[in-house]
């Protein structure tokens, strides 16, 4: 099921800029944000894979994610898992999953994570690739909560993801990647208008 309600759809560049500014604030280069079509996103992803020397990828099985991974699935040097146990998730280098929508005000991604696997995809690997349909940016919390409230009874868990896993527990020095990803790459995928 989907949370997003089309009445909120927009192609608001200002909202996108706010999102980018907020999600990156104070986190250095641990967050990357792209606003692009799916084929460009795939090629950026390819570069990331080779740079990271990634072997194991875990992913949710949404249509957008599967389509995004089309080319990677043909690459025999990669193991891509659409489900598995905790240890499979733990061993992965990269997690790829679709986010329901984004919130500009706070720079957050809203993950509908009833599925335990989907949650592990964004929580366990060192690198998380988040895919969002480009027109799904809610302006602020009020809008986001209006969307969420309509569907609240159908979902057991929702997460707002706002950057990588960080800590400042030792001498208040910001350190990235303590429990979850040390890098978050967000792709806003523009629809291909043919």
């Amino acid at each position, binding site marked *: 099921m989907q949370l997003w309600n089309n009445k909120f759809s927009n192609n608001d560049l200002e909202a996108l800029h706010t999102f980018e500014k907020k999600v990156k604030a104070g986190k250095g280069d641990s967050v990357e944000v792209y606003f692009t079509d799916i084929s460009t996103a795939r090629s950026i992803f390819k570069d990331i894979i080779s740079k990271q020397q990634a072997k194991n990828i875990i992913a949710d099985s949404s249509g957008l994610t599967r389509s995004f991974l089309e080319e990677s699935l043909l690459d025999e040097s990669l193991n891509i898992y659409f489900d598995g146990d905790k240890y499979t998730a733990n061993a992965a280098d990269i997690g790829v999953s679709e986010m329901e929508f984004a919130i500009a005000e706070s720079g957050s991604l809203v993950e509908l994570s009833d599925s335990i*696997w989907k949650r592990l995809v964004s929580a366990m690997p060192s690198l998380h690739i988040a895919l969002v349909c480009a027109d799904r940016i809610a302006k602020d919390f009020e809008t986001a909560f209006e969307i969420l409230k309509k569907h609240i009874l159908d979902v057991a868990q929702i997460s707002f993801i706002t950057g990588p*896993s960080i800590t400042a*527990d*030792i001498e208040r020095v910001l350190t990235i990647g303590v429990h979850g990803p040390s890098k978050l790459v967000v792709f806003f995928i523009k629809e291909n208008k043919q």
Partner: protein
Amino acid sequence: MNTKEFKEKINEKLNDEIQKKNLTKFYEDYPKARQKAFEGYDFEQLRNSVKNIKQNTVDKLEELADKFQKAVEKNGAVFYRAVSDKDVVDYILKLCKEKDVKLVVKSKSMLSEEVELAQHFKEAGIESQETDLGEWIIQIAKHKPSHMVMPAIHLNRQQVADYFEKQLGKNMKPDIEFLVHTARAELREKCLKADLGISGCNIAVAENGAMFILTNEGNGRLTSSLPKTHIVLVGYEKLVESFEDAIPILRILPRNATAQTLTSYVNIILGPSQAIVEHTDGTFSIEKKELHVILVDHGRIEMARDPIFKELYQCIRCSACTNVCPVYALVGGHVFGNIYTGGIGALLNAFIGSSQTANQIQNLCITCGSCTQVCSGSIDIPNLIIEMRKKNIEKEGLPTIPKVVFQNIISNRSLFHNMLKLARLGQKSFKNGQFIRNLPLYFSKYTKDRSLPAIADVPFRDIFDTILQKPAKNQEKIAFFSGCLIDFVYPETGEAVVKSLNALGFSVEFPKDQTCCGTPMYLTGDKESAKKVAMQNLEALESIDPDYIVIACPTGVEMWEKYPQFFRDDPKYLQLAQKYKNRIREYSSFVDEQLNKQNIKLNSLKNNGIATYHDSCHLKRVLGIHTQPRDIIAKAFNTNFVEMEHADQCCGMAGSYSLKFPEISKELGDQKHKSIIKSTANLVYVGCPACMLQIKGLIDKKGGNVKVMHIAQLVNEALKENK
């Protein structure tokens, strides 16, 4: 802890160079970062929303708790209400037994600290693992959290490396990134193996049972996702009525806690989701998760029913109060607090923690009011601390010395004033110029770092009649209420007040029957003695029925404004107290208003040198007066007026505080002294005689070519040649 041990602990912490360094840096960095985080938001409006949301929680507590229970059960979770700390522990241990739990992973929960869960797990032979990095560090160091948001802020990387080395039996280098990654590997293993996850909860929504968990590290997601069973600990104060009530909390909590827009992760749990269960044959299955929600009372219901302390429900544990507390910055959360840290910690402990500790640590609050400026829920922490002191006095009575002083001496005006006059004679052998440099007995520590002023040879009350006043242009009659310090220590300030007000066209009277305003008694909780002097003062003023009562001491103003509270059952005095409450004027704001209204120019005092201004805590944060004195100084000094660093940080005086905790007072005094010297000013103006006492003493003891004066002395001098 007895008083002696407590004092030793304070000294130990004051000398803990590592903690001091970490806390000082944070204390310096935080205000700027916080301000930046709130850009584009109206903080006052946000915190007003939080306040209203939580007041609603208090008003409808039982109703919301029932609603929450119904929603949680409807969502498919098991719900349990725990009355005591023992209930919480028993429930969890019983569940562990049923599920044959061997390893528990915990994400941060103050409530679990409050009920000492870790200790109980240990006794039951169950391994429990903190997953928040800071919590894990203090777990292996066997410390208590020293800060609510950053529990290990008292340690540095070397110490953490040493603790890790001891715990893991591996060589560690004091490199933060390395340490964090070591923790990641270690804690990941535990999360994968754990049978049970426990977490706290920041917001619990009554209408739909949603529970919000905010973390930066992502450990909240792992502990709620990986183990088959998850327990959420929810305090009653976390309840809010509607889902949207979470919005202002999400906006204010991360900004106030760590100057972030939002924590990296916000988990909203609405019911049991799925769990992955591995089987011994290597296969796995997806099963329904078991979710338990424990709603915990442990003193919270009593807190909601208390007409005064129910305000504590407005606390969302952001710890901004602690982050700006000058005393916390000096001694840290192991002295100033117990699990819940700082002034708010003392208050919370009185209800939901260790009440004995609460009584001890509340004394450390210097009531400077810095915390009230940043509190997410608009809680007046210093005022609640004073209420708590009063409550304790009602319960246990005053200690002997203040009791004798307050009830037998100060509340008898002629005796009190005669004693002060006698004290002037008694001080002769200790006196050196304007200061007493050494005093016997327990005063000795007090004078070690700051000279005490000498009691003036002639008190202001005996000087007043010798002041020649010009005929008034203005019909309105002013009575000057001096307060004890101006009367007996700084009569020259009193003179300046009267002469400057006269120069502004007023005739000033000084009703001789006025006495102590009552602050010392009120602050220590002796309401009866405070009431007695209030009656004397009201009668003294009524004899001349002035249009304004001008007071050049912020605590005096505050006290007068509180007089009506004393006479709720006494219509005669209540009417008087209310009448005069409206006629009280604080000196500097009154003068600034008159200068502007009458369009009077001050003469330039630029030739006197460079002037700076120290904000009194009470003048700035309680009365909200800080622009007016600056306006006055700027009028006389123009470009020769400079701001010192941290102008509004407490000077360390705080009435009898400097007697109770001379060590802390000294540290704050040192900092103020440094700021003054650094400002290059040779004149420091203040609007508060108590601050004047402290700062004059600091300069006398620590040196510096600086003159400290009350702002009235500036006004008087700058109006003189206008004659």
